[in-house]
């Protein structure tokens, strides 16, 4: 209540200059009692460009001092306040300029936005000064300077909007992506285990094959020695021939045994290690798929029989 009374007193004491309502609704409601009756505005007297310029100069000088002291925020506030009091478009543009400087310095979008609004108010007034509805006794700017001031205002709006865009761009810029150096790392989906497991399983199968060959050689040698023994019993061959051939068959049998033992060893180790690694690899792959999904480039392996005229075997084919 006291504030309203004080405001009313100030309104009476103030010179009868047009006082614009504030832009914001709250500010408008606060300053509403300060708005001079417009019936008085019409009688507010003549304002010439020279008078307006004379009143503007001390404000500009004070603002210039603040700007030189590196305080564009205070300069902008001072200019905006005085511009609003006097409805002076030039001061509005000066305020816009100071807000722009403050906005760029502080990286403040709020300052830049305030600057744009100040510039737009200044432009509204400048364009109205060229309008036939404008009171001929209310000439704040010399008509020869209006166009130049309009250009200045439009450039201020443009520059401030660009500064806001630049700030937005800097904020929204994605973090630099590190270049992929070298070969892409293979996913840890157990493909290595499966590859090595498959290889060892193949070696194990090969070992079993060697064992089979050894057993066959041993059986063949046994058969030969039995036949040779029968021949000696029947008297078909002499003891000396028997001894000579027996030595050769013994060597063949020993070779078969060696092959059998080696095949057993290689087959057992290969199959045990290979199957164990395959199990681990398959488990890891299942886990990886569950976590990452998809199986577009999953490893695969195929074991196929290969039969030829003079050979037979297995072919391992796969992608790891």
């Amino acid at each position: 209540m006291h504030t309203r009374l004080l405001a009313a007193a100030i309104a009476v004491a103030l010179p009868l200059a047009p006082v614009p309502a504030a832009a914001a609704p709250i500010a408008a409601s606060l300053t509403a009692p300060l708005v001079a009756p417009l019936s008085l505005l019409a009688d507010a007297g003549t304002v010439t460009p020279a008078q307006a310029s004379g009143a503007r100069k001390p404000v500009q000088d004070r603002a210039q001092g603040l700007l030189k002291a590196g305080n564009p925020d205070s300069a902008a506030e001072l200019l905006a306040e005085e511009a609003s009091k006097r409805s002076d478009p030039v001061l509005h543009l000066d305020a816009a300029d100071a807000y722009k400087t403050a906005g760029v310095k502080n990286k403040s979008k709020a300052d830049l936005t305030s600057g744009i609004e100040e510039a737009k108010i200044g432009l509204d007034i400048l364009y109205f000064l060229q309008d036939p509805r404008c009171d001929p006794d209310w000439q704040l700017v010399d008509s020869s300077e209006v166009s130049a001031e309009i250009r200045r205002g439009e450039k201020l709006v443009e520059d401030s909007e660009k500064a806001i865009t630049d700030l937005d761009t800097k904020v929204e810029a994605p973090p630099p992506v590190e270049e992929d150096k070298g070969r892409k790392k293979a996913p840890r989906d157990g493909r290595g285990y499966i590859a090595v497991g498959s290889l060892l399983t193949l070696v194990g199968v090969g070992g079993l094959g060697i064992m089979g060959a050894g057993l066959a050689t041993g059986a063949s040698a046994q058969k030969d020695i039995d036949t040779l023994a029968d021949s000696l019993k029947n008297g078909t061959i002499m003891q000396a021939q028997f001894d000579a051939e027996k030595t050769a068959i013994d060597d063949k049998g020993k070779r078969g045994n060696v092959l059998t033992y080696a095949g057993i060893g290689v087959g057992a180790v290969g199959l045990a290690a290979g199957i164990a690694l395959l199990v681990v690899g398959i488990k890891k792959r299942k886990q990886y798929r569950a976590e990452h999904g998809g199986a577009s480039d999953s490893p695969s392996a195929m074991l196929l029989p290969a039969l030829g005229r003079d050979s037979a075997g297995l072919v391992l084919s796969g992608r790891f």
Partner: protein
Amino acid sequence: MSLRTLPLCLASALAAAVLAPSPAHAGCTDLSGLCLEPIKGGKWEPDASLSGKQLKAKRKGAPGKLSVTIEDGRGSVFVDGRLAGTAPVANLTLGPGKHDLQVRDGQKILAEGVLTIPKGASVRVVVRHP
């Protein structure tokens, strides 16, 4: 819902629709770009203007109040050839009678004409921003 309660519900809905306060301005559609809230004695004459003599004429009677808002945009309000403020303008004290009004956003004129303020009345206008 039974047939007995249906008319009751319809009547309630109708009453609610009639009694509910309508929005002050659901959207200004006047071709002049300015909508004047209906008030006795208030008048808006788009594109009209006052002569210098009419502007300087003494006004008798209790002053009125003018509030100006702009839909979807900004602008400055000029009354009788001078800046009155930047929208929204609230409770601007004006002498009764005809006033020259222009609302503009830079080069663009949003509305202009002559607005009549009745004695002691509060007039509210909404200006459409194209």
